[in-house]
């Protein structure tokens, strides 16, 4: 099955996840954060993963990077460039991390080492991965800082992170991630911690540099605006499961899953200026928990059927919509 999926999607995917699950051992038993997710990513593609907090979206990235918390465990297959990331030895994984796959974290304020000069932190990866000399690596780091528009990059590189503003630190993180010209960039809510005014600026910079280096990006966010702005394709996650997957434009035009519809209704739009009130989804988000028999969204779904509590809907094509669309809902008909 893996094989014919692979040959179907064209060109050959850079990353393909099969049946990825992430579980955590907790005091009261096991918690499932990500529940059998499949995903294919083409080189250079920008994929958005959308979901509320607790939907498990960030854990997918951590699992790929081997950065899950110590009580976490990833199952399934993560095929990147011909090798399964989950079966690599720590040493081999370290050859991939930071050179072929890089990651940008949510909180730029705490994600840089406060005791190390910014330039040294950037240069470190080049020295280790590419065996560059210290001076050459530092020069490269300064060039990269310049490209992420850090003013006066050469002297800035000798400073410590606390001397940078939040937006600048995130640009430093972007520089650090792209310095190695990775094939894949994982971005975990890169702008959530930033001022609204500079969010767009940082995102555009990331996308622009990604395009230049031909880097594929997985962008995890709860912000649909960000997705609309940057992503080719979108995956909607709820309770650790994929609810819907589609090309970005198509998803915004014709959402098919009730949850996606709810999300879009809750999103303010410029076009529909004086809407009396934003839509809300009733109930509280289902955080990761024990495996359920039916659809994870059932408790908050306004159009649920009796079958929704007992049988788990599979991700499949939808009648009347484009072929790349996949939705996990009993209500949407199968394609003709």
């Amino acid at each position: 099955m893996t094989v014919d999926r692979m040959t179907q999607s064209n060109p050959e995917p850079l990353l393909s996840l099969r049946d990825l699950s992430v579980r955590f051992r907790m005091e009261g038993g096991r918690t499932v954060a990500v529940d059998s997710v499949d995903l294919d990513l083409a080189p250079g593609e920008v994929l958005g993963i959308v979901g509320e907090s607790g939907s498990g979206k960030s854990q997918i990235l951590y699992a790929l990077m081997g950065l899950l918390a110590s009580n976490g465990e990833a199952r399934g297959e993560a095929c990147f460039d011909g090798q399964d990331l989950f079966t690599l030895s720590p040493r081999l994984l370290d050859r991939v991390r930071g050179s072929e796959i890089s990651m940008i974290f949510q909180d730029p304020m705490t994600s840089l080492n406060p005791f190390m000069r910014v330039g040294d932190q950037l240069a470190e990866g080049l020295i280790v991965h590419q065996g560059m000399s210290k001076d050459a690596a530092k020069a490269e780091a300064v060039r990269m800082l310049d490209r992420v528009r850090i003013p006066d990059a050469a002297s800035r590189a000798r400073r410590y992170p606390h001397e940078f503003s939040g937006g600048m630190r995130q640009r430093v993180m972007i520089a650090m991630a792209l310095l190695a010209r990775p094939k894949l960039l994982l971005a975990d809510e890169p702008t959530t911690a930033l001022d609204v005014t500079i969010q767009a600026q940082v995102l555009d910079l990331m996308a622009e540099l990604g395009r230049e280096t031909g880097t594929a990006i997985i962008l995890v966010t709860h912000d649909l605006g960000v997705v609309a702005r940057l992503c080719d394709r979108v995956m909607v996650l709820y309770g650790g499961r994929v609810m819907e997957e589609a090309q970005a434009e198509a998803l915004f035009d014709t959402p098919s899953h009730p949850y996606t519809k709810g999300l879009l209704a809750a999103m303010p739009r410029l076009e529909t200026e004086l809407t009396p009130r934003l839509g809300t989804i009733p109930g509280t988000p289902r955080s990761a928990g024990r495996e359920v028999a039916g659809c994870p969204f059932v408790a908050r779904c306004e159009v649920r059927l009796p079958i929704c509590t007992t049988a788990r809907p599979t991700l499949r094509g939808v009648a009347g919509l484009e072929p790349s669309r996949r939705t996990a809902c009993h209500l949407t008909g199968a394609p003709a």
Partner: protein
Amino acid sequence: MLRFIGKRLWNGALTLAALVTLTFFVMRLAPGGPFSRNRKISKEVQANIEAAFHLDEPVIQQFGRFVWRLLHFDLGPSTRFRDYSVNDLIASGLPYSLTIGFWAMVVATFVGIALGILGALRRNGMTDYVAGTIGVIGIAIPIFVIGPVAQAYFALHLGWLPVGGMGAGWKSWVLPVLVLALPNIAYISRLTRTSMIETMRENYVRTARAKGIGGRRVLLKHTLKGALLPVVAYLGPATAAIITGSVLIETVFALPGIGRHFVDAALNRDYPLVTGITLLYGGIVILFNIGTDVLRAWMDPRLRHA
């Protein structure tokens, strides 16, 4: 950085001045004088003695004289050990207290940090268990219990080391240093362990791991510095405390250090000696605090502008 040190020194001087004043007046307010218990002395002799020690002058004048002498590093004569000045007594006792305190801290720092790091890296492993046990023992059993027990076993029972005193060369130092180090090994290893575990959870350490630079480099270049900061912050005050608290170890092992002088002086109301040692101790504490602050600022760029 220079301004930083200057500011700390100025603050230290203020604290020392407060200490000088406070000590002087506490000594005057404390009930009973050095000679008041000695009823056999006639009134004239009493008056002569008081005059010799300027106890008959108004307090303010005494204070002025006291400060003036202090500025010349003269702490005056001891009232208990008649033939010695306070300076002499300090000079004879301080080297012992300093040496024991220094070596105890060296042992405690190395052993404590090593145990703490190993424990944090392999949580619930063998080292962690051993370190935890030492930690509990070192914190719960006071050195005036563990010291005598060690004497009874290693000196009296096995006969390896002397019970006390300074007569047996390097062997005389072994027990006092180890006993004094034990509680500090306990604190330092606990502190290091907790701090290591916390630091390993820091976002910037995760960033370092995501860079794929290898576990060893993540530990040495990224984790260790942050993890050791609280330990460094502890070391200064702890060293000062070990030196100023030397009386216990000196009592247990019958060592001629300065701490025993201090307690004897206090019990005998030897004002000049108590004052002198108090100021010395105060100075030591202040000095170590400043040293710690400077060291921390050197390690942590965020503190330099404070």
